[in-house]
């Protein structure tokens, strides 16, 4: 974990509201694990103080890239930034996914929205080429499908409006697949909390393991402020753990979903 002033190499609209930002961040790039994130200060925000967290989509030798959706003032300001401008980054942060090895379970990835971005590095570093289930509202919200295919992964799509892939939620094709064959498989999911909860329930139903990356609002990003807590089961009850430090990736079985996130 370091603080680094990173220079923008490119910052372009990808599809719809999604942008791809490539940064020269040599002190961070080599250390990133799949599922980890960077915490970015957007200088023009001024009266909005906090950094914004983004999963590392991909890394190069000295670069990292992120895929982000323009949703509020921080991402609007970020989308206005240009080549050669600087951003301050903290990273890599958080506890990422367990990378599938040649003899671990067969990986099924489940993504909603920017979740695809958080899972790409995992697919890339996985020793097994698995299946990725990607869900979205509509076609424009499906990210980097081609990139997953280029890695040799099987991509299954679902959109709520049916504009691409199966019509409905992403958990539908996932259930179909698990019904066909659940054994020796493991889920890795990133997306909106209700989706993650549904994935956790499927994992329980089919008796498979699942790692989920939780999208909690962060503040410090380094474990100091105790903002980002998630209720996690313990031998004698439950406790709040930090999404930025113990997470964002948790074992789905350990989350006390009913406490509310």
């Amino acid at each position, binding site marked *: 974990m370091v*603080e680094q002033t990173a220079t923008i190499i490119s910052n372009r609209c990808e599809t719809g509201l999604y942008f791809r930002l490539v940064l020269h961040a040599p002190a961070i790039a080599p250390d990133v694990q799949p599922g980890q994130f960077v915490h970015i*200060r957007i200088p023009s925000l001024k*009266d909005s*103080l906090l950094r914004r967290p983004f999963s590392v989509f991909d890394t190069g030798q000295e670069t990292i890239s992120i895929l982000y959706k323009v949703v509020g003032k921080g991402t609007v300001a970020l989308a206005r930034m240009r080549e050669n401008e600087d951003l*301050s980054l903290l990273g890599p942060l958080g506890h990422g996914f367990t990378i599938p090895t040649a003899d671990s379970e067969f990986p099924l990835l489940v993504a909603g929205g920017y979740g695809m971005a958080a899972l790409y590095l995992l697919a890339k570093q996985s020793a097994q080429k698995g299946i990725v289930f990607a869900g979205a509202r509509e076609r424009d919200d499906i990210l980097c499908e081609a990139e997953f295919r280029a890695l040799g992964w099987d991509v299954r799509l679902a959109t709520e409006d049916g504009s691409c892939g199966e019509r409905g939620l992403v958990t539908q094709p996932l259930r179909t697949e698990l019904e066909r064959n659940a054994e020796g498989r493991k889920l890795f999911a990133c997306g909106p909390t209700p989706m993650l909860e549904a994935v956790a329930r499927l994992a329980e139903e089919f008796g498979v393991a699942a790692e989920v990356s939780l999208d909690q609002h962060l503040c410090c990003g380094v*474990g*100091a*402020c*105790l*903002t980002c807590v998630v209720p996690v089961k313990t031998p004698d009850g439950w406790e709040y753990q930090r999404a930025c430090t113990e997470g964002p990736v948790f074992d789905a079985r350990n989350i006390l979903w009913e406490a509310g996130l």
Partner: protein
Amino acid sequence: MNLSVKIGRLTLQNPVTVASGTFGYGPEYARLIDLNQLGAVTVKGIRVCPVRGNPPPRTFEVTSGLLNAIGLQGPGVDAFIANYWPFLRELKVPTIVNIWGTTVDEYAEVTRRLSELEGLGAIEINVSCPNVNGDGTAFGTDLLLLDEIVSACRRATRLTLITKLSPNVSSIVPYAKAAEQAGSDALSIMNSYPAMAIDPETRRPRLGNVTGGLSGPCIKPIAVKLVFDAARAVRIPIIGIGGIQDASDALEFIIAGATAVAIGTANFYEPQTALRVVEGLREYLKNHQIDDINGLIGSVRIERKNSC
């Protein structure tokens, strides 16, 4: 050039520490900044027992500030000593442990337990947490309770005792004096200010705890005034806290009467802030040819014009 200041019997190599609750227990920021360059490390509030804290959301970003209602989540004094003290003890700079409780006895008890730690720098009594009780009021807004708590802690330790006052009073002066008279060696001013935000779309409060404490640059002018008022009422040193982002902010507090300052919310977005403030103070002293930072403390120039 001298940057070192005294807080009770504690000597700080420079007047810059961090504010409790914004810096974890030390290790969290250790990879990002060199803790040994701080004046002291101040850790998050500790109670006798472990505390789970408030339901999320626990912080919310507001204009030039932060709302928080963490609910003082913490490991309790035993786990603190077991898990964090070994790390803190090895630092070259003193540790200040912020404490709290729900009764006077609890305050005294946690003070006693911490006093056993060899080499601990100081204890900071948090009487001003606005989050634990439903309506946000706290020990720190009742003069008698304040006296009781500080006196009880005083009896329980010979360590330097700092009382962290609540800003949520009509005048800070009687509270500052009460803490001084009850044996506090120093004051910390200020804690976060009771506040609230609502989401107009859902009509729900932005915090799980409904209300919380406001911190960050937005409260700085309030904090500077409280330090100014208190400094003219007591002889004990004051640690100025509230929205400090740079050396210029820190200087406002020092010139208003603070002997030291603590960086709070700024750690969250610029972890280097405390060290940059130390650097900036050094530069200011150089540029103004001041040898000793102690000469600046409380040196605000008041010339009331008589034009009315």
